[in-house]
């Protein structure tokens, strides 16, 4: 466990070693503001909740989270430091999880910095703050799922740009798998259980429920399992690709 925290600390510090972290947080805050107030019609809706804020997160994260995740392993492979890391007495689990957690905590930090949104809505009306908290939890879980996918794609590609594009593509598939246009493509020929299975993979249906304040154990499990599965895949991919 101590090895995990050492990897975690180093990784988190490395985000802040370059201006990247600050630029990322700035872009995230500006875009989430733009989405909420202009596209989401926060004022026009006349409701004291953060639905316009959370509704855009799956789309906002689609491009921003792979940008955090792309360097996780691609950079290690490119610079050769992966050889150093893998020959230190660190288990594969500690390395993969430590790096992932650092990225996840960083995403959480960016998310927490949107707190003026909460103050605004509390100033304007009387929102259900419990629902807002679950919304934040849901959003953070969603970011975690994107990051786990991004981590695996980063292990797959040596080039960060390719890692980014791969991650965006896979995340996009996970978003649209609940959309009618995708499901219609399946419903013609596939058995119902397969259609349901594809639909149940979607981030959107799960996230909608949590962001509205409904915490269902199954939704939590969905996100945590998804993260665990993609991290396990990351470990496998690293073993296969590390020497390339």
């Amino acid at each position: 466990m101590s090895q995990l925290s050492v990897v975690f600390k180093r990784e988190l510090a490395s985000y802040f070693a370059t201006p990247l972290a600050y630029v990322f947080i700035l872009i995230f805050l500006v875009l989430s503001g733009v989405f909420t107030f202009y596209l989401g019609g926060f004022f026009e809706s006349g409701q004291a909740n953060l639905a316009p804020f959370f509704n855009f997160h799956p789309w906002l994260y689609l491009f921003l989270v792979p940008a955090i995740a792309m360097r996780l392993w691609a950079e290690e492979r490119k610079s050769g430091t992966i050889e150093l890391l893998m020959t230190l007495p660190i288990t594969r689990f500690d390395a993969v999880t430590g790096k992932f957690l650092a990225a996840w905590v960083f995403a959480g930090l960016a998310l927490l910095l949107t707190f003026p949104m909460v103050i605004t809505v509390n100033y304007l009306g009387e929102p259900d703050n419990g629902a807002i908290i679950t919304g934040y939890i849901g959003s953070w879980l969603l970011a975690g799922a994107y990051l786990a996918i991004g981590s695996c794609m980063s292990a797959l590609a040596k080039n960060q740009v390719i890692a980014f594009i791969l991650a965006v593509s896979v995340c996009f598939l996970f978003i649209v798998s609940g959309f009618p246009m995708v499901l219609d493509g399946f419903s013609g020929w596939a058995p119902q259980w397969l259609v349901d299975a594809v639909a149940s993979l979607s981030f959107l249906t799960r996230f909608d429920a949590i962001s509205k304040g409904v915490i269902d154990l199954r939704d939590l499990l969905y996100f945590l399992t998804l993260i665990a599965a993609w991290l396990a895949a990351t470990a496998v991919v690293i073993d296969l690709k590390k020497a390339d």
Partner: protein
Amino acid sequence: MIEIKNLTKRFAQHTAVDDLSFSVKPGEVLGFLGPNGAGKSTTMKMLTGFLAPTSGSASILGFDIQKDTLKAQRQIGYLPEGAPCYGDMTVRSFLEFIAEVRGFKGAEKRQRVAKAVAQVELDAVLEQSIETLSKGFKRRVGLAQAILHDPKVLILDEPTDGLDPNQKHQVRKLIQSLAHDKIVIISTHILEEVSAVCTRAVVIAHGKLLADGTPLELESRSRYHQAVTLVAAEPLDQAALAALPGVAGVEENTLEHSLSILAKPGEVIFPQVNALIAERGWQVKELNVERGRLDEVFRSLTRGEVV
């Protein structure tokens, strides 16, 4: 003790390491020699647990690198080829990270880092980020992280590559000072380094072991072993020299105006040559008995020429 048994690594198209077996005892400094692409780095990557062998095994102080990976890795200090380090970290924070991974905390961590920094003379750049350092400093940062936990086994992949002569000398001195109770394996294609620091040399090419012995033994395999080289003011009677007992042949080096008289294997020809010079009254300016030329042995071994 490091034991390598039938170690083999196949990649898709070629066999990088082919049925390699040898063992290294504490106190030995093993020079791992071979041309580029011979399989030196691949062997080291398997020894340190970075690559899994296709077949065969390696054990570090009794810990199998495949089964007891972490225990084996704790015994090893490893400098990978090119000395990769996290460029965005400062030297101090990088070494402290390594110390923490190695399980050192608080005062002991600081003391370990300070000692390693002193050993490779990094004090001047301690607060600089690694990517701004020169190649020589980067290499020393890599060395510092490898020796930080005072490992029983040091595996250094081309430790002096890219260093200037002073730095090379310094690194060799460091390796020698560390070597007495450790197992040290260094890979290199600089032959003078083998004579300078190694107690044993292993030559490989195409993943196969070609020679294993002390640097002296290797040198004695040279056709120049016990050869006598003469520089004279006047032309010498080459036929008379070639006819001496024990002489295998005479080579003329026009560039240096010198003659090399080669000895047959196992023969000592210096007395005969000396007697002939005295008898004929030749004016000889220089006379050297050669130990053997390591580079020539290396070339003939790795290119399959007869020694």
